[in-house]
Protein backbone atom coordinates (compact mmCIF):
# COMPACT_ATOMS: atom_id res chain seq x y z
CA UNK A 1 0.00 0.00 0.00
CA UNK A 2 1.14 3.53 -0.77
CA UNK A 3 0.10 6.44 1.45
CA UNK A 4 0.89 10.03 0.51
CA UNK A 5 0.81 12.88 3.02
CA UNK A 6 -0.12 16.28 1.61
CA UNK A 7 -1.69 19.45 2.97
CA UNK A 8 -2.03 22.39 0.67
CA UNK A 9 -0.92 24.88 3.30
CA UNK A 10 2.71 24.65 4.38
CA UNK A 11 3.72 24.06 7.98
CA UNK A 12 0.58 22.16 8.99
CA UNK A 13 2.50 19.06 10.08
CA UNK A 14 2.91 16.80 7.04
CA UNK A 15 6.37 15.67 8.07
CA UNK A 16 5.30 15.27 11.72
CA UNK A 17 2.50 12.93 10.61
CA UNK A 18 4.56 11.11 7.95
CA UNK A 19 7.58 10.42 10.18
CA UNK A 20 5.41 9.48 13.17
CA UNK A 21 3.38 7.06 11.04
CA UNK A 22 6.60 5.58 9.64
CA UNK A 23 8.16 5.16 13.06
CA UNK A 24 5.02 3.68 14.63
CA UNK A 25 4.61 1.11 11.86
CA UNK A 26 8.33 0.26 11.66
CA UNK A 27 8.44 -0.45 15.40
CA UNK A 28 5.38 -2.69 14.92
CA UNK A 29 7.39 -4.79 12.45
CA UNK A 30 6.09 -3.49 9.11
CA UNK A 31 8.36 -3.12 6.11
CA UNK A 32 8.36 0.62 5.52
CA UNK A 33 9.67 2.55 2.56
CA UNK A 34 9.76 6.28 3.23
CA UNK A 35 10.15 8.86 0.44
CA UNK A 36 10.62 12.53 1.23
CA UNK A 37 9.21 14.06 -1.96
CA UNK A 38 9.69 17.66 -0.79
CA UNK A 39 12.84 17.96 -2.89
CA UNK A 40 12.97 21.75 -2.51
CA UNK A 41 13.17 21.59 1.28
CA UNK A 42 13.54 17.99 2.49
CA UNK A 43 13.56 17.61 6.27
CA UNK A 44 12.17 14.16 7.13
CA UNK A 45 15.76 12.86 7.55
CA UNK A 46 16.04 15.03 10.67
CA UNK A 47 13.41 12.82 12.34
CA UNK A 48 14.28 9.42 10.84
CA UNK A 49 18.13 9.53 10.92
CA UNK A 50 18.98 7.61 7.72
CA UNK A 51 22.52 6.50 6.90
CA UNK A 52 22.91 6.99 3.17
CA UNK A 53 24.62 4.26 1.20
CA UNK A 54 23.37 5.11 -2.28
CA UNK A 55 23.54 8.37 -4.18
CA UNK A 56 22.50 9.22 -7.75
CA UNK A 57 22.40 12.33 -9.95
CA UNK A 58 19.18 13.47 -11.57
CA UNK A 59 19.68 14.87 -15.06
CA UNK A 60 17.48 16.43 -17.68
CA UNK A 61 18.29 15.94 -21.36
CA UNK A 62 18.41 19.39 -22.89
CA UNK A 63 18.94 20.23 -26.57
CA UNK A 64 22.23 21.37 -28.05
CA UNK A 65 22.07 22.80 -31.55
CA UNK A 66 24.72 22.18 -34.20
CA UNK A 67 24.48 25.49 -36.08
CA UNK A 68 26.44 24.08 -39.02
CA UNK A 69 23.45 21.81 -39.73
CA UNK A 70 20.61 24.13 -38.66
CA UNK A 71 18.74 25.63 -41.62
CA UNK A 72 16.36 27.75 -39.54
CA UNK A 73 13.36 25.56 -40.38
CA UNK A 74 11.94 26.51 -36.94
CA UNK A 75 10.22 23.17 -36.30
CA UNK A 76 11.93 22.99 -32.88
CA UNK A 77 10.33 26.25 -31.73
CA UNK A 78 6.95 25.15 -33.09
CA UNK A 79 6.87 21.89 -31.11
CA UNK A 80 8.30 23.31 -27.87
CA UNK A 81 5.40 23.94 -25.49
CA UNK A 82 7.63 25.88 -23.10
CA UNK A 83 9.34 28.28 -25.54
CA UNK A 84 12.70 26.93 -24.46
CA UNK A 85 14.08 27.01 -28.00
CA UNK A 86 13.71 29.84 -30.52
CA UNK A 87 15.25 30.68 -33.85
CA UNK A 88 16.18 34.36 -34.02
CA UNK A 89 18.40 36.34 -36.36
CA UNK A 90 19.92 33.22 -37.90
CA UNK A 91 20.68 31.62 -34.52
CA UNK A 92 18.83 28.94 -32.59
CA UNK A 93 18.80 29.81 -28.90
CA UNK A 94 18.17 27.32 -26.10
CA UNK A 95 16.95 28.46 -22.67
CA UNK A 96 17.80 25.51 -20.39
CA UNK A 97 15.84 26.99 -17.47
CA UNK A 98 12.63 26.67 -19.52
CA UNK A 99 13.34 23.21 -20.97
CA UNK A 100 11.36 20.29 -19.50
CA UNK A 101 13.59 17.76 -21.26
CA UNK A 102 10.82 16.19 -23.37
CA UNK A 103 13.04 15.65 -26.43
CA UNK A 104 10.44 16.83 -28.98
CA UNK A 105 12.80 19.33 -30.66
CA UNK A 106 15.48 16.67 -31.11
CA UNK A 107 13.02 14.20 -32.60
CA UNK A 108 11.31 16.71 -34.88
CA UNK A 109 14.34 18.53 -36.32
CA UNK A 110 14.33 17.74 -40.08
CA UNK A 111 18.09 18.41 -40.31
CA UNK A 112 18.97 16.33 -37.24
CA UNK A 113 20.85 19.37 -36.01
CA UNK A 114 19.87 18.85 -32.38
CA UNK A 115 21.49 16.44 -29.97
CA UNK A 116 20.85 16.09 -26.25
CA UNK A 117 23.21 16.86 -23.41
CA UNK A 118 22.85 16.10 -19.72
CA UNK A 119 21.93 18.93 -17.39
CA UNK A 120 22.21 17.95 -13.72
CA UNK A 121 19.30 19.31 -11.70
CA UNK A 122 19.54 17.42 -8.42
CA UNK A 123 20.54 14.31 -6.52
CA UNK A 124 18.84 11.37 -4.82
CA UNK A 125 20.06 9.75 -1.61
CA UNK A 126 18.92 6.52 0.01
CA UNK A 127 19.77 4.39 3.00
CA UNK A 128 18.43 2.63 6.04
CA UNK A 129 16.94 4.63 8.89
CA UNK A 130 15.70 3.71 12.36
CA UNK A 131 14.13 0.24 12.82
CA UNK A 132 15.27 -0.93 9.37
CA UNK A 133 13.10 1.61 7.64
CA UNK A 134 14.11 2.17 4.03
CA UNK A 135 14.55 5.90 3.43
CA UNK A 136 15.13 8.00 0.30
CA UNK A 137 14.90 11.65 -0.59
CA UNK A 138 15.70 14.00 -3.44
CA UNK A 139 17.47 17.34 -3.42
CA UNK A 140 16.86 19.86 -6.15
CA UNK A 141 20.02 21.82 -6.99
CA UNK A 142 20.04 25.50 -6.05
CA UNK A 143 18.81 27.64 -8.94
CA UNK A 144 17.07 24.80 -10.80
CA UNK A 145 13.40 25.48 -11.43
CA UNK A 146 11.96 21.98 -11.86
CA UNK A 147 11.17 19.82 -8.86
CA UNK A 148 8.96 17.39 -10.83
CA UNK A 149 11.71 15.42 -12.65
CA UNK A 150 13.56 14.93 -9.34
CA UNK A 151 10.40 13.63 -7.65
CA UNK A 152 9.56 11.40 -10.64
CA UNK A 153 13.08 9.94 -10.62
CA UNK A 154 12.98 9.47 -6.83
CA UNK A 155 9.76 7.44 -7.07
CA UNK A 156 11.10 5.41 -10.01
CA UNK A 157 14.47 4.78 -8.32
CA UNK A 158 12.92 3.71 -5.05
CA UNK A 159 9.85 1.87 -6.30
CA UNK A 160 9.02 -0.45 -3.42
CA UNK A 161 8.09 -4.12 -3.25
CA UNK A 162 4.33 -4.78 -3.12
CA UNK A 163 4.65 -6.18 0.41
CA UNK A 164 6.07 -2.96 1.84
CA UNK A 165 4.10 0.02 3.01
CA UNK A 166 5.21 3.16 1.24
CA UNK A 167 4.91 6.56 2.90
CA UNK A 168 5.36 9.55 0.60
CA UNK A 169 5.83 12.93 2.28
CA UNK A 170 4.65 15.49 -0.30
CA UNK A 171 5.70 19.13 -0.60
CA UNK A 172 3.26 21.91 0.37
CA UNK A 173 0.98 23.54 -2.18
CA UNK A 174 -1.25 22.03 -4.86
CA UNK A 175 0.86 22.48 -7.98
CA UNK A 176 2.81 20.07 -10.22
CA UNK A 177 5.32 18.82 -7.57
CA UNK A 178 2.42 17.79 -5.31
CA UNK A 179 0.59 16.06 -8.18
CA UNK A 180 3.79 14.17 -9.04
CA UNK A 181 4.31 13.19 -5.38
CA UNK A 182 0.75 11.99 -4.80
CA UNK A 183 0.27 10.27 -8.17
CA UNK A 184 -0.02 6.50 -7.81
CA UNK A 185 -0.86 6.56 -4.09
CA UNK A 186 -3.70 4.39 -2.77
CA UNK A 187 -4.65 6.96 -0.16
CA UNK A 188 -3.81 10.56 0.71
CA UNK A 189 -3.69 11.88 4.26
CA UNK A 190 -4.35 15.63 4.19
CA UNK A 191 -2.91 17.38 7.22
CA UNK A 192 -4.71 20.61 7.98
CA UNK A 193 -4.98 23.13 10.75
CA UNK A 194 -8.24 24.70 11.99
CA UNK A 195 -7.61 28.17 10.59
CA UNK A 196 -9.13 30.02 7.62
CA UNK A 197 -5.82 29.60 5.75
CA UNK A 198 -5.73 25.87 6.57
CA UNK A 199 -9.30 25.47 5.33
CA UNK A 200 -8.69 27.44 2.14
CA UNK A 201 -5.76 25.24 1.12
CA UNK A 202 -7.43 22.05 2.35
CA UNK A 203 -10.25 22.66 -0.13
CA UNK A 204 -7.70 22.95 -2.96
CA UNK A 205 -5.94 19.78 -1.83
CA UNK A 206 -9.25 17.89 -1.70
CA UNK A 207 -9.96 18.99 -5.29
CA UNK A 208 -6.53 17.75 -6.31
CA UNK A 209 -7.08 14.27 -4.84
CA UNK A 210 -10.56 14.14 -6.41
CA UNK A 211 -9.06 15.00 -9.79
CA UNK A 212 -6.56 12.16 -9.39
CA UNK A 213 -9.27 9.81 -8.11
CA UNK A 214 -7.46 8.98 -4.85
CA UNK A 215 -9.45 8.61 -1.62
CA UNK A 216 -8.39 10.90 1.20
CA UNK A 217 -8.96 11.71 4.85
CA UNK A 218 -7.97 14.58 7.11
CA UNK A 219 -5.78 14.91 10.17
CA UNK A 220 -6.45 18.12 12.07
CA UNK A 221 -3.23 19.30 13.65
CA UNK A 222 -3.00 22.06 16.30
CA UNK A 223 -6.59 21.25 17.15
CA UNK A 224 -8.07 23.88 19.42
CA UNK A 225 -6.66 26.97 17.74
CA UNK A 226 -8.68 28.99 15.25
CA UNK A 227 -12.25 28.03 14.47
CA UNK A 228 -14.38 24.96 13.72
CA UNK A 229 -14.78 25.48 9.99
CA UNK A 230 -12.35 22.73 8.94
CA UNK A 231 -14.40 20.18 10.95
CA UNK A 232 -17.64 21.57 9.52
CA UNK A 233 -16.25 21.35 5.99
CA UNK A 234 -15.20 17.71 6.55
CA UNK A 235 -18.62 16.80 7.95
CA UNK A 236 -20.48 18.52 5.13
CA UNK A 237 -18.39 16.91 2.38
CA UNK A 238 -18.17 13.49 4.02
CA UNK A 239 -14.38 13.61 4.47
CA UNK A 240 -13.28 11.36 7.32
CA UNK A 241 -11.37 13.08 10.14
CA UNK A 242 -8.72 10.47 10.84
CA UNK A 243 -7.06 12.05 13.85
CA UNK A 244 -6.91 15.23 15.88
CA UNK A 245 -3.59 16.37 17.30
CA UNK A 246 -4.12 19.12 19.88
CA UNK A 247 -1.97 22.21 20.17
CA UNK A 248 0.17 21.31 23.15
CA UNK A 249 3.35 22.83 24.43
CA UNK A 250 4.84 19.39 25.10
CA UNK A 251 4.37 18.34 21.45
CA UNK A 252 5.82 21.58 20.07
CA UNK A 253 8.81 21.40 22.41
CA UNK A 254 9.46 17.75 21.47
CA UNK A 255 9.26 18.43 17.72
CA UNK A 256 11.68 21.31 18.23
CA UNK A 257 14.26 18.82 19.48
CA UNK A 258 13.82 16.56 16.45
CA UNK A 259 11.54 13.92 17.98
CA UNK A 260 8.54 12.34 16.26
CA UNK A 261 5.12 12.50 17.86
CA UNK A 262 5.30 8.82 18.87
CA UNK A 263 8.49 9.51 20.84
CA UNK A 264 7.07 12.60 22.53
CA UNK A 265 3.78 10.95 23.51
CA UNK A 266 4.01 7.13 23.15
CA UNK A 267 0.19 6.77 23.16
CA UNK A 268 0.29 8.03 19.56
CA UNK A 269 2.05 4.83 18.46
CA UNK A 270 -1.18 2.84 18.78
CA UNK A 271 -3.17 5.68 17.18
CA UNK A 272 -0.95 5.63 14.09
CA UNK A 273 -1.08 1.83 13.84
CA UNK A 274 -4.90 1.99 13.98
CA UNK A 275 -4.81 4.80 11.43
CA UNK A 276 -2.97 2.59 8.93
CA UNK A 277 -5.51 -0.21 9.42
CA UNK A 278 -8.34 2.26 8.87
CA UNK A 279 -6.66 3.58 5.72
CA UNK A 280 -6.04 0.10 4.38
CA UNK A 281 -9.72 -0.81 4.61
CA UNK A 282 -10.78 2.57 3.21
CA UNK A 283 -8.49 2.28 0.19
CA UNK A 284 -9.71 -1.29 -0.46
CA UNK A 285 -13.29 -0.04 -0.32
CA UNK A 286 -12.31 2.70 -2.77
CA UNK A 287 -10.91 0.13 -5.19
CA UNK A 288 -14.11 -1.88 -5.16
CA UNK A 289 -16.44 1.04 -5.82
Amino acid at each position, binding site marked *: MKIAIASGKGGTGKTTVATSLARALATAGHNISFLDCDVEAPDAHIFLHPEYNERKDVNLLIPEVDMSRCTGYDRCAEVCQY*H*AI*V*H*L*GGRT*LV*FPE*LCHGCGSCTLECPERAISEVLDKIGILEAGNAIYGLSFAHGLLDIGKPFAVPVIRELKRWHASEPSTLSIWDAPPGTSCPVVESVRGADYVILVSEPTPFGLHDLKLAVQLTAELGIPCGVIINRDGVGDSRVSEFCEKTGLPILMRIPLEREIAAGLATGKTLVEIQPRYRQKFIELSTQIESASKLGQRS
Partner: protein
Amino acid sequence: MKIIITASNEDINQPFNPRFGRADTFLLFDSNSKEWSTLANPASHSSGGAGPQAVEFISHKGVDVVVSGRFGPKAVSALQAAGVKAYTALTGTVSEVLEQYLNGQLKQVG
Protein backbone atom coordinates in the same frame (compact mmCIF):
# COMPACT_ATOMS: atom_id res chain seq x y z
CA MET B 1 12.26 52.44 -38.63
CA LYS B 2 9.77 50.45 -36.54
CA ILE B 3 9.61 51.22 -32.82
CA ILE B 4 7.51 49.31 -30.28
CA ILE B 5 6.39 50.77 -26.95
CA THR B 6 4.90 48.22 -24.53
CA ALA B 7 1.37 49.18 -23.50
CA SER B 8 -1.76 48.01 -21.70
CA ASN B 9 -4.20 49.02 -24.43
CA GLU B 10 -4.26 50.78 -27.80
CA ASP B 11 -4.45 54.33 -26.36
CA ILE B 12 -1.12 56.15 -26.86
CA ASN B 13 -2.19 58.74 -24.24
CA GLN B 14 -2.31 56.11 -21.47
CA PRO B 15 0.77 55.21 -19.37
CA PHE B 16 3.09 52.70 -21.05
CA ASN B 17 3.28 49.18 -19.58
CA PRO B 18 6.70 48.68 -17.92
CA ARG B 19 6.66 44.89 -18.39
CA PHE B 20 8.04 43.59 -21.67
CA GLY B 21 7.20 39.89 -22.11
CA ARG B 22 3.86 40.15 -20.37
CA ALA B 23 2.64 43.50 -21.71
CA ASP B 24 -0.88 43.17 -23.12
CA THR B 25 -0.24 45.24 -26.22
CA PHE B 26 2.65 46.36 -28.37
CA LEU B 27 2.07 49.78 -29.93
CA LEU B 28 4.14 50.06 -33.07
CA PHE B 29 5.27 53.42 -34.43
CA ASP B 30 6.58 53.57 -37.97
CA SER B 31 8.96 56.55 -38.19
CA ASN B 32 8.66 56.69 -41.99
CA SER B 33 4.88 56.91 -42.19
CA LYS B 34 4.51 58.50 -38.69
CA GLU B 35 1.66 56.07 -38.03
CA TRP B 36 0.76 53.95 -35.04
CA SER B 37 -0.54 50.39 -35.19
CA THR B 38 -1.60 47.94 -32.46
CA LEU B 39 -0.24 44.41 -31.98
CA ALA B 40 -1.64 42.05 -29.35
CA ASN B 41 1.21 40.34 -27.48
CA PRO B 42 0.73 36.56 -27.93
CA ALA B 43 3.02 35.89 -24.94
CA SER B 44 1.19 38.03 -22.37
CA HIS B 45 -0.44 35.03 -20.65
CA SER B 46 2.26 32.46 -21.34
CA SER B 47 2.99 30.13 -18.42
CA GLY B 48 6.72 30.61 -18.89
CA GLY B 49 9.25 31.98 -21.33
CA ALA B 50 7.13 35.01 -22.23
CA GLY B 51 10.26 37.07 -22.97
CA PRO B 52 11.75 34.92 -25.78
CA GLN B 53 8.27 34.27 -27.17
CA ALA B 54 7.54 38.02 -27.38
CA VAL B 55 10.93 38.62 -29.02
CA GLU B 56 10.21 35.94 -31.60
CA PHE B 57 6.89 37.67 -32.37
CA ILE B 58 8.27 41.20 -32.74
CA SER B 59 11.32 39.98 -34.64
CA HIS B 60 9.02 38.48 -37.30
CA LYS B 61 7.33 41.89 -37.56
CA GLY B 62 10.61 43.50 -38.57
CA VAL B 63 10.84 45.70 -35.49
CA ASP B 64 14.11 47.63 -34.94
CA VAL B 65 13.62 49.08 -31.45
CA VAL B 66 11.55 48.15 -28.42
CA VAL B 67 11.01 50.38 -25.38
CA SER B 68 9.74 48.99 -22.07
CA GLY B 69 10.38 49.36 -18.33
CA ARG B 70 12.20 46.10 -17.64
CA PHE B 71 13.58 43.23 -19.71
CA GLY B 72 14.22 39.81 -18.19
CA PRO B 73 17.57 38.05 -18.78
CA LYS B 74 16.09 35.59 -21.32
CA ALA B 75 14.41 38.44 -23.21
CA VAL B 76 17.73 40.30 -23.35
CA SER B 77 19.60 37.30 -24.88
CA ALA B 78 16.78 36.78 -27.38
CA LEU B 79 16.69 40.49 -28.34
CA GLN B 80 20.45 40.46 -28.89
CA ALA B 81 20.22 37.36 -31.09
CA ALA B 82 17.36 38.90 -33.04
CA GLY B 83 19.24 42.19 -33.44
CA VAL B 84 16.44 44.24 -31.88
CA LYS B 85 17.65 47.22 -29.82
CA ALA B 86 16.05 47.57 -26.38
CA TYR B 87 15.64 50.74 -24.33
CA THR B 88 14.22 51.30 -20.85
CA ALA B 89 11.90 54.12 -19.83
CA LEU B 90 10.79 55.01 -16.30
CA THR B 91 7.50 56.83 -16.64
CA GLY B 92 5.13 58.50 -19.10
CA THR B 93 2.36 57.84 -21.57
CA VAL B 94 3.10 55.82 -24.68
CA SER B 95 3.44 58.94 -26.81
CA GLU B 96 5.65 60.64 -24.19
CA VAL B 97 7.89 57.56 -24.04
CA LEU B 98 8.23 57.68 -27.83
CA GLU B 99 9.28 61.35 -27.55
CA GLN B 100 11.84 60.42 -24.87
CA TYR B 101 13.27 57.78 -27.20
CA LEU B 102 13.35 60.08 -30.24
CA ASN B 103 15.08 62.78 -28.14
CA GLY B 104 17.77 60.31 -27.13
CA GLN B 105 16.82 60.43 -23.42
CA LEU B 106 16.50 56.67 -22.86
CA LYS B 107 19.10 54.14 -21.81
CA GLN B 108 19.91 51.20 -24.09
CA VAL B 109 19.93 47.70 -22.56
CA GLY B 110 22.94 45.40 -22.91
